């Protein structure tokens, strides 16, 4: 090899410090024109050779890799790769659910044959969660289709549900796929996890590469255990400072999305580091990575550490090998946040990047509150909401819907004591506050769903929600207005009947 020309095929690797230490009160700041200009194409060009240059005896020049690049390099059995490269990647886990599973299976059979078998019956995890507690016949049929396929293929992990009238009568049923994947130990550092759902990026909280794909790609993975993926450049988000006790990870990600816009991370990886991130629990890290897709991101990652290992201790027997960004790794851009300066946020209708301070929306009258989903329906999310209700001691002023993400979350809500409450459980606190009874675990009304879905917005109302998207019609009604918020902010808003900064109750 006489010469080595390096062409960064995507953008220039600009390491830029954008310090955001003071958060101004301007709502939704983003410069539309700049978001496209972030990537500048720079092709490095070799000067003509003057004399013959012998190849290096120590092998090809290696550059530092980011966490995401390392995972993809290992999964594609390459020692080096650069962002923009398309590589065939070995998949460790493929997840699908009731909405996309049937379509993916249809394609799998069409392409690989009626008698084809999945590439590895232990690496396919099938989790019905989207349209479960409904009388919609097609929705119910889709769960049956999942069951037929799992039986035929002898799929090891199928979290089935048959008795729709009583979720507890289904020992295998879990609920929301992304929370179930984590709780069942399917998320492991360094691995590649693909799912037929945009919020598959949630699993990046475990230091793995996790992203959403469609039915056709999933059908391909089912047969081969591989997929062609483009290596994304990485945006680095450094969050330092002690997390104020009125802020949650949801506020952090809303801050970021408001900063870079809904397309600010398109085709890019988002890496979250810093002392604040290190202080987050696994569930909080999941919330952070969950909404990476709302910024257009391909995947999100939080480097694995003791918090990760501890969480995984009882959950998985499979060995895993975490990876970390090299010191000389090249990041496309770096953003720095002093978390102590941030305030509770909302994303106003109708976009997740329509950021505003919660306190500046205090005149917005609301009709309902929804606490649930993969984003804001985990155990800690309910504990957070309970904390606010406890601090207030009053009753909610609007219907407040609670939808635990999984069976385990539901049980936690009914059994775990809330600190400072004298032994009360979340469910007791919710009941005293006048909230609706916690519902059967599923995705629920986060995405509207069939007409009879619990808490679906069937009228044009204003809702504060701990979910992830608020585009027109997201929760059902096209003229519905959804304010995305943290569980603290959602609970505070339920208590006043207006969008409310949780410091009204927490300080």
């Amino acid at each position, binding site marked *: 090899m006489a010469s080595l020309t390096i062409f960064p095929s995507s953008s220039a690797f600009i390491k830029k410090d954008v310090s955001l230490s003071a958060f101004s009160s301007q709502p939704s700041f983003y410069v539309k024109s700049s978001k496209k200009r972030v990537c500048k194409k720079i092709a490095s060009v070799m000067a003509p050779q003057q004399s013959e240059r012998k190849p290096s005896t120590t092998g090809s020049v290696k550059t530092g890799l980011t966490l995401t690049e390392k995972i993809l390099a290992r999964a594609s059995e390459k020692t080096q790769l650069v962002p923009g490269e398309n590589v065939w990647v070995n998949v460790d886990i493929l997840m699908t659910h009731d909405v996309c599973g049937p379509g993916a299976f249809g*394609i799998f059979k069409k392409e690989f044959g009626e008698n084809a078998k999945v590439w590895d019956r232990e690496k396919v995890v099938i989790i019905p969660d989207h349209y479960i507690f409904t009388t919609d016949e097609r929705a119910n049929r889709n769960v049956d289709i999942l069951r037929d396929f799992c039986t035929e293929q002898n799929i090891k992990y199928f979290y089935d549900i048959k008795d729709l009238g009583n979720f507890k009568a289904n020992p295998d049923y879990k609920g929301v796929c992304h929370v179930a994947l984590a709780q069942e130990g399917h998320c492991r550092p360094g691995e590649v996890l693909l799912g037929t759902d945009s919020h598959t990026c949630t699993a990046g909280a475990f230091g793995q590469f996790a992203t959403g794909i*469609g039915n056709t790609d999933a059908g391909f993975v089912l047969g081969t255990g591989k997929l062609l993926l483009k290596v994304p450049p990485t945006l680095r988000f450094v969050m330092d400072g002690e997390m104020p006790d009125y802020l949650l990870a949801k506020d952090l990600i809303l801050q970021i999305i408001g900063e870079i816009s809904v397309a600010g991370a398109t085709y890019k990886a988002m890496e979250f580091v810093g002392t604040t991130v290190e202080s987050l629990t696994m569930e909080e890290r999941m919330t952070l990575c969950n909404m990476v897709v709302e910024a257009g991101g391909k995947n999100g990652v939080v480097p694995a550490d003791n918090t990760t290992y501890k969480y995984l201790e009882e959950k998985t027997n499979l060995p895993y090998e975490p990876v970390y960004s090299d010191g000389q790794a090249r990041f496309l851009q770096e953003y720095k946040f002093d978390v102590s300066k941030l305030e509770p946020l909302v994303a106003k209708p109708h976009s997740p990047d329509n950021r505003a301070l919660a306190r500046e929306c205090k005149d917005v009258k609301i009709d309902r509150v929804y606490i649930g989903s993969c984003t804001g329906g985990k155990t800690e999310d309910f504990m957070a909401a309970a904390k606010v209700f406890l601090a207030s001691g009053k009753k909610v002023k609007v219907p407040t819907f609670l939808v635990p993400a999984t069976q385990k979350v539901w049980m936690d809500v009914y059994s775990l004591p809330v600190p400072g409450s004298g032994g009360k459980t979340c469910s007791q606190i919710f009941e005293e506050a006048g909230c609706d009874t916690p519902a059967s675990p599923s995705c629920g009304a986060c995405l509207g769903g069939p007409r009879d879905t619990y808490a679906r917005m069937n009228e044009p109302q204003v809702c504060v929600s701990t979910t992830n998207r608020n585009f027109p019609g997201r929760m059902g009604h096209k003229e519905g207005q959804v304010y995305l918020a943290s569980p603290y902010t959602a609970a505070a808003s339920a208590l006043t009947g207006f969008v409310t900064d949780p410091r009204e109750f927490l300080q």
Partner: protein
Amino acid sequence: MAAAAATTFSELSAFKLVSSRPNSSSLTVFSSLKLPSATNSPNYSFKALKSQLNPQRHHRITSPLRSTTTTPDAASTVTTFHGLCYVVGDNIDTDQIIPAEYLTLVPSNPVEYEKLGSYALIGLPSSYETRFIDPGEIKSKYSIVIGGDNFGCGSSREHAPVALGASGVAAVVAESYARIFFRNSVATGEVYPVESEGRLCKECKTGDVVTIELGESDSKLINHTSGKEYKLKPIGDAGPVIKAGGIFAYARKTGMIPSR
């Protein structure tokens, strides 16, 4: 005139048959309509595809303007789309393209595939006074959708490009795409995702007659109603996958999976 219409009809039905087939191999036909080349997958014969499709489809086509044809050019391969365009704005998310309540329809099921098409873009707010599909109709008269930034953002649901394709859309021309939607469009072959150089959603109006020409070296959109032409971006990395006929055909061609 009748003869010409008949010719147009059969050419159109050729392409329309392609886009109505709910799987990625539809693109193989698309590429096979160009001049034969060594790279075309030999595994799907056009006749085989035709026979699998619902013959009812032919009756839906009401006007030659809705047609999209691929016209092989003697000098180079040029892919052409032609028809009425429907213009939308920025950040058209998957819930607007196909609201979640319709996701119980399974795209690989031919009957449900058609139903999905009938709901395409039904989630657009009422500020869009001209609807994408006329009341009572199940197909759209617009075969090209022109959008702004971040088209297809939101969910990974493949139902989104499928619904558009099933409704009659042959190509989308957007300023930029959300990645999963773009991937799904390429993988399924349901709609050809074209990137514009500028904000065509401001230059074109719903109902304009447009032609898209995708050439080897340059691509353009011609708006016949306004008389203006616009440059389009090359397809980029997805090109070989589209040319091969979708992810499965590409994988077979490159030896990743065995041929059938």
